[in-house]
């Protein structure tokens, strides 16, 4: 089955790319954009039919590789 993961920077961690995107959007007449936070998205195909087992395994992958918990949070969708 396919498991989807989003990795984002933790609140309070500086995101210069997000900031640059926000400023660009503001300059493109999207003046009401007050903040952009950039993240990563993963589509992971796991050979496992049990959904909860697959998601537990993906959580483990997030902790060990996909996210760096010093600055990032992850969400298994």
């Amino acid at each position, binding site marked *: 089955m396919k498991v989807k993961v989003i990795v984002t920077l933790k609140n309070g*961690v*500086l995101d*210069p*790319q997000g900031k640059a995107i926000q400023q660009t959007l503001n300059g493109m007449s999207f003046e009401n954009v007050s903040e952009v936070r950039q993240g990563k998205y993963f589509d992971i195909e796991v050979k496992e039919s049990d959904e909860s087992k697959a998601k537990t395994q993906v959580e483990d992958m997030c902790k060990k*590789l*996909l996210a*760096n918990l*010093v*600055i990032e949070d992850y969400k298994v969708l």
Partner: protein
Amino acid sequence: MKSSVIIFPGSNCDRDMDVALKKFGFKNQMVWHNDDEIPKSDLIVLPGGFSYGDYLRCGSIAGKSRIIKSVIDFANSGGLVLGICNGFQILTETGLLPGILQQNKYLNFICKNVFVKIKNNENKFFKDIKKEILELHIAHNEGNYFCSNDELKSIEDNNQIAVTYCDHNGNDDEENNPNGALKNIAGIFNKNKNILGMMPHPERMIDPFLSGEDGSLFFENLIKSL
């Protein structure tokens, strides 16, 4: 003294490091990332570069590569480990050093000479270096050191800050911070001071005709203190 430089796909300062180590008397050997064991060594170096194309996060894939288990075992048994630039990033990704190197604050790749101040010389890496301020070279896109407040407190309490960015007079303030690094941190130790990770490249400053010689002071001290 024997040293080993680990080569990852995308390492590009491995040969510079080999030249520097040999120049100052190390018997150096190159070790491939896919090997299981590191030959007997007094020092292991993780060189600069772009291991695995900086995929996912800088150093994250190298931090899980086959050879790393031997590096971790060596470090945990007290062996001397040096990570320069991408090597520093790899050391944080393995958890051997706290924190992480984020993208530079102003999103630019920085390639220039900088001054760094030695903050702690009660360790083998800086013990007998007579100068307090060294001129070294940096070349990185992700050198913006970051860690949580709790970690920073623990790093400071244990004197783990090795070098900070400064000017030629040693002022390590925000004005002399090239990449946004927390507390101007350019390099840190682990608690036991047998692991050093730093962004500046001492191996690029070993020739009086091409660069400068402050990197020479680093390697001369290193071989003497081992």
